[in-house]
């Protein structure tokens, strides 16, 4: 698990400053990786199953509504990475923001993939985004 998240998050380079490498590899990467997938999944479920199936809302199934959730997911992923890094008391470094940006991009990716898989089960939004 750790090795998987480490390989994903080190695509943008090794953690900086080097002294904090073990904290990133052992704690922060798995944390933000798992949370990121979890939150993307939660937002997808809320969009397709809660709003567009259980609640039967008929007017929230357009591509732009989906995009709102996509952006929210990206912002959460960004904030999440920063707060996790600070929670582990790593040294302040611009790397934290690069990591947060990369995490946001990964969040968008997960949201998109999960949308493709799960949209079929929705009644009102089974063809969103396309």
């Amino acid at each position, binding site marked *: 698990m750790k090795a998987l998240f480490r390989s994903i998050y080190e695509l943008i380079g090794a953690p900086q400053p*080097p002294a904090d490498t*073990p904290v990133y590899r*052992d704690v922060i990467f798995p944390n*933000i990786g798992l*949370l990121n997938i979890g*939150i993307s999944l939660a937002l997808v479920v809320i969009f397709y199953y*809660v709003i567009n199936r*259980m609640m039967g809302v008929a007017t929230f199934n357009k591509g732009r509504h989906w995009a709102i959730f996509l952006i929210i997911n990206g912002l959460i992923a960004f904030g999440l990475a920063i707060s996790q890094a600070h929670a*582990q008391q790593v040294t302040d470094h611009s790397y934290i923001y690069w990591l947060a940006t990369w995490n946001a991009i990964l969040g968008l990716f997960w949201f998109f993939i999960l949308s493709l898989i799960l949209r079929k089960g929705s009644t009102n939004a089974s063809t969103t985004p396309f």
Partner: protein
Amino acid sequence: MRYLSAFSRLLPALGLSLLLLPGCYSRSDMKTEEGAATETTATPPVETPVAAAEPKTAPATTEAAATTAQPLQAVNVFLEVSGSMEGFMPKTGASGENTKFQQHVAQFLSEVNRSTAVRQKTFYRIKERPYKDSYQPISGTVRSGIQQPAKSTDIPSVLDTLMTNYYRPGTVSVLISDFIYSPKNAGAIPYIKTDIADALSRGGEKPDLAVSVYGYTSDFRGTYYPALVASGKKTNCCDTEIPYYIWVVGPASAVRQFDAVLLEKQPAKQAHFGVTYPQPVYSVLNKFQNKGSWYYGDAGASKRNADTYRVISVSEASAQQPVEFVVGLDLGQLPGQYRDVAYLKQNLKLQGVDTDAKLLDVFAATDQNRASSGPESKFTHFAKVRLTKQPKAARPLVLRLQDQRPAWVAQWTTKNDATPAPKTFALSSLLDGLEAQSGAEKKPIFEAPLTLQPAE
């Protein structure tokens, strides 16, 4: 209405996601993941019950902690009362002034007598042979002078007596004397070393024999008897201070314990022979004057205790971008001589395999370091290491404190003590004899193994 109930069904999911937010992994759950291997190697000394009571001075091994907790069986204090000692203990003058010797030794005897670190205390005065005495008369002698000085006592025969009659486990013999060794004839002078070594080995093989020598100087008012009898005694001596010594003789662990409790408080010159010390607590520090691209390479590094890092993972090192790291050492358990920064600078050596790692500097903790919230506050000394080549594979790197004869011994030694001076006749030959006893090869005071490895 339907809208609201649908939203309330959503609440558990929302709650669950809120619970997840703080993160699943934390530094504290590493132990369960790392397994038994890390547990055994990294058992921190802070967890032993003895050390918990005094965390700052916690020894590195539990074995050492156990011996420290137990009081010593017995201590035998021997005070030499030959004529040459009279000047240290003059009869109290009209003005009531005393010598530094009287001040110091009276206080030392009192501390020994009151100490709870030793069960049984016995006091002897050495004339031709030791005579059993008790604290009060001995202390009285020190304060008000020797009433009936003995003839010169012979150091080898005194040591011989100590070794045959008073050497027992958990027992130390303390010898207070000027250690001016005057052989019967001048022909014996070259054999001082051999005489001492012979005397110590009398009474059977004692592999753990240790001797600590503490040197002091005191003003001296009386007759001075040089070792070389031919040069004649000096009355109404002296303008200069004359050295005297406290020797602690016994099994290594007992000597270490006695030194730490009763002799380390006062500043003194020291030399130790055969005394062994527990390995000090040490750790690499990753956020204390560190430079370059490296990190803790220990398994589960992010969740270990701060004082147990031993592995340096180097991701990049070159002449332009050297790696510098600091090793924190807690030398609180060692005697003052080995905590002396000048001694450490000379004798702390770094030995590596296949690396250009060099010891840049050794320095003591400042008040600022001690007050710091970082792990550096736990250490008394720091060793800074620099390297410019990345290791090719995991390689050992050892910090080793060598056991060297301290410089003061040579300064305090004289070949001719006809003129009174703060020097002792043939002191280094006496100590040579102690060294010969404690074994051919000198063991280092401590070794702190580390590992250098390339970053993964």
